[in-house]
C-alpha cells in the first residue's frame, strides 16, 4: 500500500477506511490511465498508418458492426457498474457509524472548529481521540455550510446549519492529522484548520483523567496567594494571557488593534464602546466581566452577536486574570504578530 500512496501523492492512511479506498482509487486511476493513453496511442497510430499520401484520395465507406460496438460499450458499462458496486458498499460503511462509538459533538463556526466531549469537556481546533476505537462526530454549524475534512482518514462531511449530520472514523495509528474546512465559508476559509490528536490507549486514559486541568491551576494559585492576597499584578496578567490563549478568545479578538470577528482588545480598557442604537458604555472591569458571562447584553456596534457565553467555563479568577491582561494592552501593547485580513469587522455584515 505505501508505494501506491507514494505514487499518487496520497496522505498516510490512518483510518480503517483508508486501505479500501486507496486500493479502489488505484484501480480506477490505472484503468483511466490505461484507457486514455490507449485511445491516444491508437489515434496516433492511425494518424501515422493512414496519413494522407495523395491530396484527394477517396476512402472506403466503412460502417461499424453493431455487435462490435455493443460488446465494447457493454464491457465498459460492466466495468463502471463494478466500480459503482464496490464504491457504494464502502460509502454505506462510511455513512453508518457503529453503535459503540465514542460520541463527540462538533460545532463549526465561522473559521473555527469546536469540540465538546461526553464529560462536558470542551476544546477548540483540537480533537483528541483514542486509537483503535470508533469515534462518532455529531456535527452542526452555527452560521454557514462548512465541511469537516480529514485527508488522512479519507472522510469528509458537509456540516449544514440547522441540522445534525454524522461522520465517524476509527483511527489506526497514533499521531496528529490535519482537519481542513472543504466548503467555502467566507474570508478565512483557508484558515479554518484544526488537528486530530490520536493518542495511544494509555495516553488517552491519562488525558481523560486530568479533569479540566486549566481551571484547577488558576484556583490553586489563588489559594496559594492567601485567598484574598493580591497576586503580583504582572503575574496575573501573564496568567490571563495563558487563559485567553487556551480558551481561544484570541481566535476572535485580536491584540494588535485590528478588528476581526470580535472587537480588538488593544486599547479597549476604559475606552468608550459604541453599542447598538448609538448608546455607549465605558469598557471597565464590570463591562468586560459582564461581556464574558453574558455577551448578548451590550454588543459592540458593527459586530455580529455571535460570542458564546463563558458562564460556568471561566472561573472567577480566570475572568479577573483576563481583565488584567486586557489592561496591559492599554499602553502600547504588542506589535501585530499575525497579519489578519484588513476587512474591517470581517464577520460584521454591513
Amino acid at each position: 500500500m505505501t508505494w501506491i500512496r507514494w505514487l499518487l501523492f496520497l496522505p498516510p492512511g490512518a483510518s480503517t477506511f483508508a486501505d479500501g479506498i486507496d486500493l479502489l482509487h488505484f484501480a480506477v486511476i490505472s484503468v483511466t490511465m490505461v484507457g486514455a493513453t490507449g485511445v491516444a496511442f491508437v489515434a496516433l497510430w492511425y494518424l501515422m498508418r493512414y496519413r494522407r499520401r495523395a491530396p484527394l484520395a477517396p476512402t472506403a465507406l466503412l460502417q461499424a458492426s453493431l455487435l462490435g460496438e455493443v460488446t465494447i460499450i457493454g464491457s465498459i458499462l460492466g466495468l463502471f457498474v463494478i466500480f459503482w458496486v464496490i464504491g457504494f458498499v464502502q460509502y454505506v460503511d462510511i455513512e453508518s457509524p457503529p453503535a459503540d462509538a465514542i460520541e463527540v459533538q462538533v460545532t463549526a463556526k465561522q473559521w473555527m472548529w469546536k469540540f465538546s466531549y461526553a464529560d462536558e469537556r470542551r476544546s477548540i481546533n483540537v480533537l483528541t481521540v483514542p486509537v483503535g476505537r470508533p469515534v462518532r462526530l455529531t456535527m452542526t454549524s452555527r452560521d454557514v455550510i462548512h465541511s469537516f475534512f480529514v485527508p488522512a482518514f479519507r472522510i469528509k462531511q458537509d456540516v449544514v446549519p440547522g441540522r445534525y449530520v454524522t461522520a465517524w472514523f476509527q483511527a489506526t495509528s497514533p499521531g496528529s492529522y490535519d482537519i481542513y474546512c472543504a466548503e467555502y465559508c467566507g474570508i478565512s476559509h483557508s484558515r479554518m484548520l484544526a488537528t486530530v490528536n490520536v493518542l495511544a490507549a494509555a495516553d488517552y486514559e491519562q488525558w481523560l483523567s486530568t479533569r479540566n486541568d486549566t481551571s484547577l491551576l488558576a484556583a490553586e494559585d489563588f489559594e496559594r496567594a492567601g485567598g484574598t492576597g493580591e497576586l503580583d499584578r504582572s503575574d496575573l496578567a501573564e496568567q490571563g494571557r495563558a487563559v485567553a490563549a487556551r480558551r481561544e478568545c484570541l481566535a476572535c479578538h485580536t491584540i494588535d488593534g485590528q478588528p476581526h470577528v470580535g472587537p480588538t482588545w488593544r486599547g479597549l480598557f476604559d475606552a468608550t464602546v459604541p453599542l447598538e442604537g448609538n448608546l455607549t458604555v465605558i469598557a471597565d472591569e464590570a463591562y468586560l466581566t459582564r461581556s464574558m458571562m453574558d455577551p448578548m447584553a451590550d454588543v459592540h456596534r458593527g459586530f455580529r452577536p455571535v460570542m458564546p457565553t463563558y458562564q460556568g467555563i471561566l472561573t472567577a479568577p480566570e475572568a479577573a486574570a483576563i481583565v488584567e491582561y486586557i489592561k496591559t494592552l492599554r499602553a502600547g501593547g504588542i506589535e501585530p504578530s499575525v497579519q489578519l485580513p484588513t476587512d474591517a469587522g470581517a464577520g460584521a455584515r454591513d
Partner: protein
Amino acid sequence: MHEHRRVNRRSFFLVFVALIALAALSYGLSFARVGALSVPLALSISAIKVTLVAVFFMELVAQRFVNRFVVVVAMGMLSTLLALMAADVLTRGTPPLAPPLSAGGP
C-alpha cells in the same frame, strides 16, 4: 393550422363548463374530511383541468407531433426534479431537526 382537426366554438363552451364544474368539485372537496388524500386528490383534479386547457384551448390536438412532444418532455423534467429531490428528503436518516441556534454554549 391543420385543416382536418379543427376545434370549434361548441367544444370550447363544453370545455369551459367542465372546467367550472371541476373547480367547484375541488372547492367542495376542500371542506370534506378526506385526511391525507386531500393533496393528491386536489392535484389530480388540477391535472385534469390543465390537460383540458392545453388540449382544447391551446389547440394542442391540432398541432404537429413535435409540439406535443415538447409538453411531454417538460413534464418529464418536472417529475424527475421532484422525484429525486423528494427521495432525498424522505430517506434522510437523522431527522432534520434544527438545534436551537439561539442557545449559547461555546
